[in-house]
């Protein structure tokens, strides 16, 4: 099977999974009372007083099948309800808040992966020596730390005590410039890049300074995953025949490790990319809440807590649906990359 055929087949396979994701969210909606469910169909704050009307229009008292038809057609039109905590429709709020989250992920993901691979390789090469013990201990500590407590501790040390890295997304000067001065153009929504494009490098620096602590939290929490997989696959590669052959050929240790063992050991790391995506999606909910960054993660957390004990149902379900879809697509991309690198996969 060629790569093209494989990709087409794999893309077709996600349709049932996506449908399942949508069905599961629908099943969750069925746990609410009709009045709570009605909030999923509201488009503006004005409609919040017309709950009974909505229950009637969308047949919320009728059988599950009728309800699913209505709900699904609304979903296809992109209507996920109105979020009271964001004071905007769910879709709109999501697009508004996505860049802040995306920026956080864009910075922490490459550092996590590269540093994780480096530490994993070092750990395997120096097996049962000091670097191995240190990295393994750090990994198990990273596994056991509650994300929110780590964030709080980092903030206590680096903000409350030392005053180096403040929380939130940017300082007052930067936010005044962006929202008040009127000379700011949004190009990408990512403030670090837009700062440079606007010719205001100080904004980029300010945003970067604010991002140090949340990025650090995400890295510490997720790096253990990459490190462990890299270590074990590197250990396996180091025992393979071609590595012994390379050593016998008289190559230096650096060459053997970098050119022969590490390249082959990298493939299994991709299998955890899906888990890493999940880790990041969960991680942003906590880190954005701790560091007060206005992204989708904090929005979901606030929505779950709700205002006055009433949870913002459309926001939480919309966010859950979003993460489910992101996760499915992340796995799709991983599978395709895997098939591209390792032709044997396509034959299975």
């Amino acid at each position, binding site marked *: 099977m060629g790569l093209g055929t494989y990709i087409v087949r794999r893309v077709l396979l996600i349709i049932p999974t996506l449908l399942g994701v949508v069905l599961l969210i629908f099943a969750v909606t069925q746990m609410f009372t009709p009045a709570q469910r009605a909030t999923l169909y509201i488009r503006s704050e004005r409609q919040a007083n017309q709950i009974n009307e909505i229950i009637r229009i969308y047949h919320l008292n009728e059988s599950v099948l009728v309800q699913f038809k209505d709900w699904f057609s609304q979903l296809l039109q992109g209507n996920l309800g109105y979020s009271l905590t964001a004071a905007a429709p769910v879709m709109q709020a999501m697009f508004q808040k996505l860049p802040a989250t995306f920026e956080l992920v864009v910075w922490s993901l490459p550092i996590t992966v590269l540093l994780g691979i480096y530490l994993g390789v070092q750990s395997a090469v120096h097996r049962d020596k000091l670097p191995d013990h240190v990295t393994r201990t750090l990994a*198990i500590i990273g*596994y*056991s730390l509650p994300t929110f407590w780590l964030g*709080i501790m980092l903030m*206590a040390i680096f903000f409350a005590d030392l005053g180096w890295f403040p929380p939130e997304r940017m300082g007052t000067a930067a936010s005044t410039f962006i929202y008040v001065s009127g000379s700011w153009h949004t190009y990408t929504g990512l403030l670090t890049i837009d700062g440079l494009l606007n010719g205001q490098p100080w904004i980029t620096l300010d945003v970067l300074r604010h991002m140090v602590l949340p990025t650090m939290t995400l890295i510490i929490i997720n790096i253990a995953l990459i490190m462990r997989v890299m270590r074990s696959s590197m250990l396996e590669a180091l025992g393979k025949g071609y590595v012994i052959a390379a050593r016998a050929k008289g190559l230096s240790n650096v060459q053997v490790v970098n050119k022969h063992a590490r390249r082959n050991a990298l493939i299994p790391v991709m299998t955890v990319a899906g888990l890493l995506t999940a880790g990041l999606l969960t991680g942003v909910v906590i880190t954005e809440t701790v560091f007060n960054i206005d992204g989708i993660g904090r929005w979901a*957390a606030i929505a*779950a807590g709700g205002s006055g004990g009433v949870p913002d149902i459309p926001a939480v379900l919309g966010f*859950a649906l979003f993460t489910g879809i992101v996760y499915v697509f992340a796995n799709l991309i991983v599978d395709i990359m895997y098939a591209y690198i390792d032709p044997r996969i396509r034959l299975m």
Partner: protein
Amino acid sequence: MSIKSRWTEFRLGIRPALDELKFTMRQIRKSPLSIAGVVIIGIFAAIAILAPVLAPSITSDPYMMFHDGYSLIPLPPGTPISDSYIRNLGWTVHYFGVAQGGLDIYYGCIWGTRTAFRIGVIVVAIGLAVGLVTGCLAGYYGGAIDEVLMRFTDIVLAFPGLILAMALVIALPKEWSIDFGFIGLAIVIFLGLIIVGRSKKLTGIWPFMLGLLGLVAFVIVDTYALGTPYPIFVQGITLGSLDKVLIALALVGWPGYTRVIRGEILRVRQEDYVEASKAVGCSDLRIIARHILPNSIYPVVIMASLDIGAVVLLAAALSFLGIGAPIGFADWGQMISLARNWIYSGAANPWQYWYTYIIPGVFIFAFVLGWNLLGDAFRDILDPTLRRK
């Protein structure tokens, strides 16, 4: 095998299972990390058991942290206790200080250990039980039932655990009317038809399918013929915040076990000893319970011990987000959540209120670390490909 011959084996020390157990114990003693894990969990278990002695409770619900006044700001460790009843018990000082609202941190940490064990053990036990049944069905019988179960686990696993748990916690109603009559009748019909099917010489998956068919028929009759779910014996139950967390985490957790157990069963199903026991005429249940499970349970045990830590972390995160344990409940996550306002309070000394967030944090961290160390040690010791090396 008679009990007597088993005893003889035991006395002579030739019982293989006992040998394996001894070997495992020896391995645990040899690895310093696993000793650390065992010690940490042992200490926490002792704290949980001795909680009423270490921190006597004065309220009707011991899981609510005890109030000593209603101080608006936290008070440092060593502050004398003003409540005369507690003083008479010989407990005079707030060892770990007082959190906002006069809540004693020491009390919360001690009883929080019980909460942590309760959450971890219950959620993992439910996950294991459901995972065992569904994993065995999927792995042993394969076919349509395998396909349906696996697609379902795919979907649940397509969500990050915390996020799905968040949605479930807010979706679960506070008052839940459960029709126990309906559930009981459904179980009776299901099991009854399986027994009838077996006595009618149906083999393999077919008695189960017959039971399933009866179940579906019963639900359809109850819903559509008798009216929208026809009530038989309805009993309302009240779900506390913590019960919701338990249910949500259990619902999120079981598919992982199902997949691991199914994979293990697929691995051993084709082994000669399974074929042999089939040839001798053992029943499916006996083959699964006596021949397949003992040979495939190890990875699940490892997973469960690692999972207790992970479940406690998830529950703490839910508490931190304000949808887990209620304020004042003896739960470490909730205590840290309560302490958030005191991290940068603007006080001259930034560490002035350190005890409100560092002490409960250390408790969570140590608890999870203990389980992770134990799980890691189990992984190396119980893995059959590594254990004799």
